[in-house]
């Protein structure tokens, strides 16, 4: 199979959320000796981009996106095994991400984490229901460039304000970007509490961070 055909198929398998097919394709591609980074950048990413468009148009829904992003993660792991170590390690920025304490929802946040990994960020996903202190400790420990928090409820969005303050108190705030998202949040809220930016979706997060870090 030609390389171009591999790219098309990789994108299509992601759009179809077909994990088995994309896994098989990635292995065959490596046997052919092609460049693994190229498949991530031109094949898989193109699939994710197409899915984002379909999702925004309301043509596909969240379950499809979750399964597609898992398929993407599986394929990327296979391809990364064939990459030289220096290329795997080369990341745009270090991102700490989590859902605020009291909030046990993290489906959207999980997709954001996957997308950021796909686009070359090093992501430390703290999961859901994360105490403010844990965000701060992790950011300090790894020297985070970005701290992202998600809040789905009006009860937990106040935690994002507390996070801003905690990062300031720890002396970290000036050296990193804060971003927030989640169903309860708005651009107005981000501005009000002094976060650097608000993102509406996973695609929006990637776009805004890439503007800053590439």
């Amino acid at each position, binding site marked *: 199979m030609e390389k171009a055909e591999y790219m098309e198929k990789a994108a299509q398998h992601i759009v179809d959320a077909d994990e088995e097919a994309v896994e098989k394709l990635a292995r065959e591609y490596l046997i052919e000796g092609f460049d693994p980074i190229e498949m991530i950048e031109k094949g898989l990413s193109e699939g994710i981009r197409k899915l984002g468009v379909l999702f925004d148009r309301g043509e596909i829904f969240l*379950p499809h996106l979750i399964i597609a992003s898992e398929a993407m993660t599986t394929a990327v792991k296979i391809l990364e095994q064939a990459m030289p170590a220096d290329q795997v390690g080369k990341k745009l920025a270090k991102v700490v991400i989590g859902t605020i*304490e009291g909030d046990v929802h993290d489906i959207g946040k999980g997709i954001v984490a996957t997308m950021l990994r796909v686009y070359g960020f090093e992501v430390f996903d703290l999961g859901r229901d994360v105490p403010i202190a844990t965000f701060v400790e992790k950011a300090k420990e790894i020297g985070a460039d970005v701290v992202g928090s998600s809040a789905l409820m009006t009860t937990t969005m106040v935690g994002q304000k507390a996070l801003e303050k905690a990062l300031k108190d720890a002396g970290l705030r000036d050296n990193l970007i804060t971003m927030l998202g989640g169903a309860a949040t*708005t651009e107005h809220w981000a501005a009000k509490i002094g976060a650097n930016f608000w993102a509406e979706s996973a695609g929006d997060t990637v776009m805004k961070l890439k503007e800053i870090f590439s």
Partner: protein
Amino acid sequence: MNSKERVMAVINHQKPDRMPCFGANCMVTYEQMEAAQAFWPKGHEDGETMARLALASHTVLGFDAVRVPFCQTFEARALGIKIKPGKLPGNMEGIPGIDHPPLYKLDDTPVFPDDFLSRGFIPELLKAVRILKKELGDEVPVIAGIIGPFTLAGSLIDTVPLLKATFKAPDKIRPWLEIGEKAGTALAKALIDAGADIICCEDMTASPELIAPKTYKELELEFQTKQFDAISVPTILHICGKVDPIVEWMAQTGPNILSLDTKTKPHIVREKCGPDVVLLGGVDVATTLFLHGPDEVKREAEEAIADGIQILAPGCAVGPGTPTENLLAMLQVAKGH
């Protein structure tokens, strides 16, 4: 008209003396807790405290209904699910939620306990309804909340595995929807026996923001319809987010009232659902009620009424930090219609 007559008039398609104003979801705020001297977490777990706190939406705000409970964990806890207390940053009290890991996996067989209604805090919830009924009689309607089949299924096997199954193996979800429907219906019947005037079913996870509309139509529609068929008092169905793609089927499940998030426009719902269902909603909770002031609240409420809202309400559960003056501004608008 008193509040109950006013609300029943709207439900029965008669003309009320003015538009009713109340929320279908939790209306509790920290300011109401102070005024009622009834606080969380006790208000989630103790019938008397719960009733005292619920009363505040009528005594403090002047709203046309009271509502219990204040969280979405009663059925789940009684089904054996681990619940996480409602601790918020800064040691504030919030609402309890479903803890992880989940009790079951998709391929397991769910168990419905025979003593369901005496498990967890359900006896305290029933006690709260009895106290409220005794206190309010036929003056103010008592709304009691249950959780929809799909959302309960998500509490049992966790939301992400449930969503994945809707895509990969939709038939495997049916036993979970069955037990979810059974639990909510059993609770609803007990709440009615205790004196509830209206049952509100919250089904957050069935929103098109989480599942495909096709899944609602092919699976949830059947179970929600079965549930409403079994409930003898007026009903409200609340699903968060923009529900345009499923709202027609939501109305087909048979609720008297649809509770709408502000992302869903009333005139679109009216077009899709016809004249029968009553529309409740109007003011956004996360931004307008929580962050803005009475002027913005009034403007948004007026717009929603002009667009077809018949019962003025917050679009979802009120954030507990919401200022009282914003909620009072809603009532003021309702009084003008």
